[in-house]
């Protein structure tokens, strides 16, 4: 059969793919180009590829490398990125698994209640969600956590959580805040997977006298192998690229700037943030973004394999 592209196909695809080309493909190429320029403070008239002093295309990449090896703030960013990503990842996957299992094992109505509740952080507007935890971890006596712990007599004076014994304090805050958003992804995927575990398997084990824990350990969790892998990779990717909540916490001065800045937040702030005496440097930001893209693309390809793409791509049947 000969395949040809019909005009009506273009009608169906044009809106979506125009947007994809304008807002994904073109910006990616532009960002990559910017990573070789000296673009600063968004002065688009001055986008030279090289200047009199620096006659190299890789200027921004050299600078980035130099900062990685010499700038203590930049080293904090790298450590924070690694610690934040991995600890939050583990909490997200285990938390999601725990929530899904608990929701699976309890009565239906309560299960819906809890699952909905844990979806809430994801749906809450970013600015409101950050605000909620801003009040909670606030350094003064007005901070919820401080007030509670002081009333209980655990601490005498209010603790400035976002700055306490760095890096532990700031890390704990940003990890906790983001982990609560992330668990719902694993919860939803694991829960729907648990629902499709053949009930006969559980019954058979029950008849043989298995306890709930044994059912979980030997039947439910093994059947989630692939889902756990998928959620892990997908969440890893998401955590590498999330920064909105942390940005607000840094912006509001709740947490130590450098012990809370992850790689993607660093890119964002280098490109857009003009705090006290700070100027933006898009060339450097774009170079840092390129590294992120490379990691993202690799993880994306792994995810694609895990999703067993081909199963979801049944051939169209209504073809004439």
């Amino acid at each position, binding site marked *: 059969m000969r395949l040809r592209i019909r005009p009506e196909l273009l009608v169906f695809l044009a809106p979506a793919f125009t947007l994809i080309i304008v807002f*994904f493909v073109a910006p990616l190429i*532009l960002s990559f180009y910017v990573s070789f320029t000296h673009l600063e403070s968004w002065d688009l008239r001055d986008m030279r590829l090289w200047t009199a002093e620096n006659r190299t295309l890789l200027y921004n990449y050299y600078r980035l490398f130099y900062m990685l090896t010499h700038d203590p703030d930049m080293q904090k960013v790298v450590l924070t990125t690694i610690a934040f990503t991995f600890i939050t990842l583990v909490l997200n996957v285990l938390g999601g698994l725990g929530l899904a299992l608990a929701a699976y094992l309890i009565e239906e109505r309560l299960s819906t209640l809890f699952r909905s509740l844990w979806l809430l952080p994801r749906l809450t507007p970013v600015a409101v969600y950050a605000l909620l935890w801003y009040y909670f971890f606030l350094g003064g006596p007005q901070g919820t956590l401080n007030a509670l712990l002081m009333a209980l007599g655990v601490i005498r004076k209010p603790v400035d959580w976002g700055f306490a014994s760095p890096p532990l304090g700031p890390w704990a805050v940003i990890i906790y805040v983001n982990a609560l958003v992330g668990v719902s992804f694993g919860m939803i995927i694991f829960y729907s997977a648990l629902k499709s575990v053949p009930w006969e398997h559980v019954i058979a084990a029950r008849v043989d006298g298995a306890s709930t824990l044994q059912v979980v350990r030997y039947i439910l969790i093994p059947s989630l192998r692939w889902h756990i892998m998928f959620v892990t990779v997908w969440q890893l990717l998401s955590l590498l690229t999330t920064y909105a909540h942390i940005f607000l916490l840094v912006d509001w001065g709740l947490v130590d700037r450098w012990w809370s800045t992850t790689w993607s937040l660093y890119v964002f702030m280098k490109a857009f943030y003009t705090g006290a005496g700070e100027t933006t440097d898009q060339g450097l930001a774009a170079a840092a973004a390129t590294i992120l893209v490379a990691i*993202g693309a690799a993880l994306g390809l792994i995810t694609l394999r895990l999703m067993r793409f081909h199963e979801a791509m049944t051939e169209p049947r209504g073809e004439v």
Partner: protein
Amino acid sequence: MLSLRGLFSRREGRVEERRDVETVSVTRRTIVLSAILGAASLPLVLVYVLLVLTSFSKDVVTGVELLQGRGVEWTLANWAALLSGQLSTILPGTVTVNIYSAILNTLLIAFGVMVVVVVASTLAGYAFSRMRFPGRRGLMQFIILLHAFPGVALLIGVYMVYLWLLNAFFARAPGLRDAYVIAYTILARASLEIPMSIWLMKGFFDKIPWEVEWSALVDGASRLRVWWEILLPQVKPGIAALAIFSFLAGWEDFVYVYVFTYLGTGGRMFTLATLIEQLVSRIETAELPLAAAAGVLYLLPTLIFFILTQRLLLEAYAGGVKG
């Protein structure tokens, strides 16, 4: 293993069946696990409740004063100040924000994102579900990769284009400029949702039997007519779910509105998100209740949708999530 289509399939009615054959007391297990879940959920519930209480109080409510029986000075002043838009009466300095234009901007962006996403992905979703063309598989894979893409890397390029167009065409036309800023924000934010939405809609189209459509095509109806008259009425639940997701995505967004409507206009234009960002970064702790009121106002539509569409969200959210 996992297929995206599977994520959206309806749950089977297994609930009753489970109860009948269960040999261990569900009640005891439910009580123990619910207690654990409840304890883990407590801080989460607490922060939302405290936000609402604080919005009606003179000082930040920590909950401790309520437990200890100390009084909280309740007041409507925060809400009055917020809704009258006279933030400067409470705040020192020059914060005069038209709260209604902030609400309007937020609404416009959310609605805009919804319309763009629904139109573009119901069209493309149909093509991927029903039409055979070269590069179909490759494009679908490409779309998944896009969904997984680091948004911050794109933002630099997207903002460059924004600035170019702004300087070239809209710098001297203030009225048009605001319309441009909103429109650009909508298109840029909607694009982020497009990849996953195409997958979502493709999944919904895949489940529709093709016989009726096929006979219409044989009778000579055009693809567009078939899509509009036969397919769309059948995927109404899917479109509703997609509309809610994309509206909420436009509504909850911070980064795009911050960059395009706030930074891009030199701080002239506000949405609820950037208003809160500014309230907290500018004011003394004593005025935090005002930010809480703005937060509650901003949270309301989300909560309403959330309560009304819980089930739908739980079932269909799986594919459209990030973070």
